[in-house]
């Protein structure tokens, strides 16, 4: 068994034992079950869940991720004294957090749905929702690691993490709307799509819009939108960009980790 997989195994069991993850899974279980039970049909529950997922996963992941790395500081220093490569250690820490978080999310949302019959369309939407949730978990864990490694002060790091979340979840879209209003007389299709690709939360949202609101999206006359939303290309571009949003912070974190003087 390699060093990395040994660390992953240890970290996973460590995270699973923490109450955080239990609460996280329980939250999704309760939210999903509640929406399914009281919201009526599964289609509507999925729509409401989308908002929950896009709001909660980035926030919890980025906060939990930074705290996790700060609290693992002594453990990291201990292991670095051993003959363990830094990339392996980083990979172990990264997967040791992302895997339990993703698992908790998938279980929390998946179990209530698994207990009910689901038609094909809703099944597809559920899969898209789970995929977006997992992708956001990976992306925001990477961001959290970058923040925690670059900033040694815990309070400051946590502040930066929450600020980063607020910017990406809310402020960014507000600015986009202001820009769209200011430059309403210009052809805005391409810039708007580019701005959406530049924010992982918006990307995840676009992937889910393609499932829920395609009727409305097709109502817009622009050829670029029609190309983007009407063919498979929108989904392909969004998926590729989301992968980029997973890879870039993770690689950046690994680089920082390799060079950091602990």
């Amino acid at each position, binding site marked *: 068994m390699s060093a990395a997989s040994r660390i992953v195994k240890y970290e996973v069991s460590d995270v699973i034992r923490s109450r955080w993850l239990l609460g996280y899974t329980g939250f999704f279980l309760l939210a999903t079950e509640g929406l399914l039970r009281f919201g009526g049909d599964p289609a509507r529950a999925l729509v409401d869940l989308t908002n929950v997922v896009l709001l909660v996963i980035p926030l919890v992941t980025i906060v939990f991720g930074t705290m996790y790395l700060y609290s693992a500081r002594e453990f990291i220093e201990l292991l670095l004294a051993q003959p363990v490569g830094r990339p392996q250690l980083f990979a172990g820490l990264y997967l040791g957090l992302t895997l339990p978080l993703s698992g908790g999310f998938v279980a929390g949302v998946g179990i209530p749905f698994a207990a009910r019959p689901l038609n094909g369309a809703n099944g597809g939407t559920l899969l898209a929702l789970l995929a977006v949730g997992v992708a956001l978990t990976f992306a925001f864990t990477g961001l959290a690691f970058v923040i925690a490694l670059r900033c040694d002060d815990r309070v400051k790091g946590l502040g930066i993490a929450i600020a980063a979340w607020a910017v990406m979840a809310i402020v960014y879209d507000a600015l986009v709307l202001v820009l769209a209003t200011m430059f309403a007389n210009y052809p805005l299709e391409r810039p*708007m799509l580019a701005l959406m690709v530049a924010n992982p939360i918006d990307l995840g949202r676009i992937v889910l819009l393609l499932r829920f609101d395609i009727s409305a999206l097709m109502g817009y006359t622009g050829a670029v939108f029609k190309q983007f939303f009407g063919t498979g290309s929108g989904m392909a571009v969004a998926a590729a960009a989301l992968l980029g949003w997973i890879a870039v912070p993770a690689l950046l974190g690994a680089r920082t980790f390799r060079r950091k003087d602990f």
Partner: protein
Amino acid sequence: MQGTPRWRLALAGALALAAASAIAAAAQMPPRTMVVSSNGPLRTISAALAQARDGDSIRVAPGVYRESTIVVDKRVDIAGDGDAILDGEHRRQIMTVTVNDVSIRHLHFRNVGVSDLGDLAAVKVVNADRCTIADNTIENAVFGIYLARSAGCRIVRNAIRGQARDEVRSGNGIHLWQSRDALIANNHITGHRDGIYFEFVTGTAVLDNVSEDNLRYGLHFMYSDDCRYVANVFRHNVAGVAVMYTHRVVMIGNTFEQNWGSASYGLLFKEIDDSRVESNHFVNNTVGLMADDANRIVAVHNEFRDNGWALKLMANTDDGRFEANNFMGNTFDVSTNGAQTSTIFTANYWDHYRGYDLDRDGFGDVPYHPVRLFSLIVGRNPPAMVLMRSVFVAALDAAERAIPALTPETPVDERPAMRPIP
């Protein structure tokens, strides 16, 4: 009669008697049945028609018949016996009916010619009343069934399949011009320019037809008052259904679905007055129902589900009434381009409604404003649509609901239903 010589009276009487007996003799002449077949004495329908008298029947044996345009000028019943194919060889109109009381049944028409000079059809009925066109198959026609200045015709159970590729070189599946009191029922129309097209048509009933995958509209009519459309399905037509300049339209139990695009509507009402829209299903359209200068619409018990916009009400639409409709899963419920509307909404079910019902009468205690702030923003600035369902937009909408500043006071549903209307 005073002073009329008696012999004159007698002569008149005798003449009348002779005429009457002649008519009686003609009426008593038994109707004949002629058989057209590719190896019999009558090899074309035209040949049979030349010998036929009013009231005769013509049976067409299976086979492929290629003959110049058949002009039906006697009151006959022409029916296919098995798969009798009338082939226009992409050159001509196949059949023209010019007298009353003709029936055309169980025939298989194919390959009508394209002409820049006239509208060629598989069956064209001109100035003839009470025709029956039933159980035919029409393939690859420009116009399928074409009625001009006719009354009381029945067009039932025909399957009309076109292969139209562009609007210019194609025609309509069922086309009525200046006709009245027709019945169009149980037909299936696909692959034409418009599935069903009316111009200056009155008193006609359109029942249980399916019109899908047409190049332009599933149903399109203008200046066609007092017609009824019941239990039809209009699906996946490029521009949906558009109806214009007409009074007293009744539409009951129809389905309008899967019409996507910037100029595509489940149902477009343009200058339609005093219409009744009842128990229809508007599902999966970019716009479910678009009302442009459509006054006094009464819309009850309709279902609007999974549309981009369930309802677009232009400001020039007045005095409508929307009651007991279900609005579910639509991205936007209602949008309008005016500051207020005189259209009344009451007792509808809106799945976006988040009010409460303390007095337990089944209706929410706070009114529902179906026009959202974000739909106004998108109306002014369409690319902003990519922000749909974002946290910021949700916050904006919530703020607007709490302190309305920009959204119009009307339309408003003062008594929104708490549960879907069954």
